[in-house]
């Protein structure tokens, strides 16, 4: 990666609710100028404070001057050489996975001014200048599915920034770039996406089987951009050409072009004793991502460790 250098530019504008005189005084103190000299310098804005510094230094100036009340612009100092005409550049944002396949973690580079949407409480690390806003998402269906209905939007203000995302589930992460395509995700599989991807919950009605423990609530993602989704456990990709049956608790995602039907396995004896509960039969041609762990089994294992509230008249959870 070329070592990019940056210009730190004082736009001359102050941030909202900032007293300009105080900001000038702060600027003067920082650069060891007298206040009139500082004011004169600022009058000539926009001015280049630093011509060519590395990213970390630029970040420090951005923060320090920002604290003093100044609106700062960071620009790339060196214009990168024209891309060698070759294969088309990889569409979408730059990102790296670590910890695969068991405890996958993704670090995404968000270009200046752009926003990504992230599942609430999945942010683990981030650059200080990322601004976070919470948006309510989805309607009643999402609430009932048990999934939190908040999605956080992170915007890179003034600067290319990075964010590290860790889902709550132990497992893998996958990325797809949707080119005006659609993909269906199991409700807790959504991790993050870029702004132009539309994510909506689709009510599956009767398929909340009490044996599977995990209702077949689906989320539909479509549009053009990046989508990251996670699994509980490792992911196995199945290319469906003939009928394929998957336990509803193990579906992560599937592509368009597949028909699916939720049924129970075998007869009633199987239903009660086999532990298999509801399964989803896929037909058609497409791809299914399945996870190697069974959510329902994990939930019932964890249930045994739940603390029992000792006070009387407790709500007892649920």
């Amino acid at each position, binding site marked *: 990666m070329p070592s990019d250098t940056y210009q730190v530019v004082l736009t001359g504008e102050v941030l909202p609710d900032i007293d300009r005189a105080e900001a000038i005084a702060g600027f003067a103190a920082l650069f060891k100028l007298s206040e009139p000299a500082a004011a004169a310098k600022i009058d000539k804005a926009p001015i280049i404070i630093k011509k060519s510094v590395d990213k*970390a230094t630029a*970040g*420090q100036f951005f*923060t320090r001057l920002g604290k003093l009340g100044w609106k700062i612009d960071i620009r790339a100092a060196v214009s990168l050489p024209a891309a060698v005409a070759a294969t088309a550049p990889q569409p979408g944002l730059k990102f790296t996975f*670590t*910890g695969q396949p*068991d*405890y*996958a*973690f993704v670090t995404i580079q968000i270009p200046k001014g752009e926003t990504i949407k992230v599942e*609430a*409480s*999945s*942010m*683990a*690390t*981030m*650059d*200080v200048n*990322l*601004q*976070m*806003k*919470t948006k309510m998402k989805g309607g009643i269906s999402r609430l009932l599915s*048990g*999934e*939190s209905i*908040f999605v*956080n939007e992170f915007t890179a203000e003034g600067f290319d920034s990075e964010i*590290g995302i*860790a*889902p*709550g*589930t*132990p497992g893998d992460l996958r990325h797809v770039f949707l080119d005006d395509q659609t993909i269906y995700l199991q409700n*807790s599989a959504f991790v993050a996406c870029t702004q132009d991807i539309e994510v909506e919950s689709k009510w599956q009605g009767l398929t909340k089987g009490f044996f599977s*423990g*995990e209702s077949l609530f689906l989320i539909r993602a479509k549009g053009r951009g990046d989508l990251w989704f996670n699994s509980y456990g490792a992911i196995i990709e199945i290319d469906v050409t003939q009928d394929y049956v998957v336990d509803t608790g193990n579906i992560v995602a599937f592509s368009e072009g597949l028909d699916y039907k939720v049924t129970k396995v075998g007869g009633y004896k199987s239903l009660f004793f086999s532990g298999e509960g509801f399964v989803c039969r896929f037909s058609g041609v497409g791809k299914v991502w399945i996870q190697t762990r069974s*959510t329902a089994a*994990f*939930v019932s294992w*964890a*249930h045994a460790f*739940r603390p029992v509230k000792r006070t009387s008249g407790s709500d007892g*959870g*649920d």
Partner: protein
Amino acid sequence: MQTAIKGSKAFSYIEVSLEQGESIVCEAGGMSSMDAAIDLTARLNGGFLRALIKRYLGGETLFVSNFTNNTSQPRTLTLVQSVPGEIRCQKMQGEGFNLQPGAFIACTAGVKLGLRWAGLVSFIAREGLFKLVASGDGNLWYGAYGAMIEKEIDGEYIVDTAHLVAFEPGVKLKLQLAGGLFSSLFGGEGLVTRVEGKGKIIVQSRSLAGLAGWLNPKF
């Protein structure tokens, strides 16, 4: 003494071979298997009062296990942590190393574990009032839930409090809200830790709070 970290990063464990007279200290309950001839004694994790403090405020166990080989042959034992994840060995040479409570697994005799005030910020962030500060010479093993990710800090960075595992002495912690008040409370991010300074921080790719958050709606 010979030690090796085995298992994948998802389920790391420590294989130890002790020569005659050698000992290793590990958190209570950390042994999964050992040669029957190894002697196990439990001792307080510090003096009595400090051990109590470490337990109730620092989240560490009250007692630690001391494994000694008092026989003439080398003996093996296996040490583990209660959560699945990566284990790393920090070679200490007099400088300090800070651990979040619960991350400590084992250490050799020359490493001292102290309790330091981590600041009110740490308390509010539910991490406990104290941080474990290791010093001295020897090996220190610590573990995470999930994979470990190292980051060199030079300036400032933000870390979700449940994901911070360890940090070098040159790094300080400060607390802040993740977003505006509404975002912080409902966006699930709540309080985050701002790390400042120069040095390395170790972050874990999963957190028990995150796992519980995924499980609780499903009960």
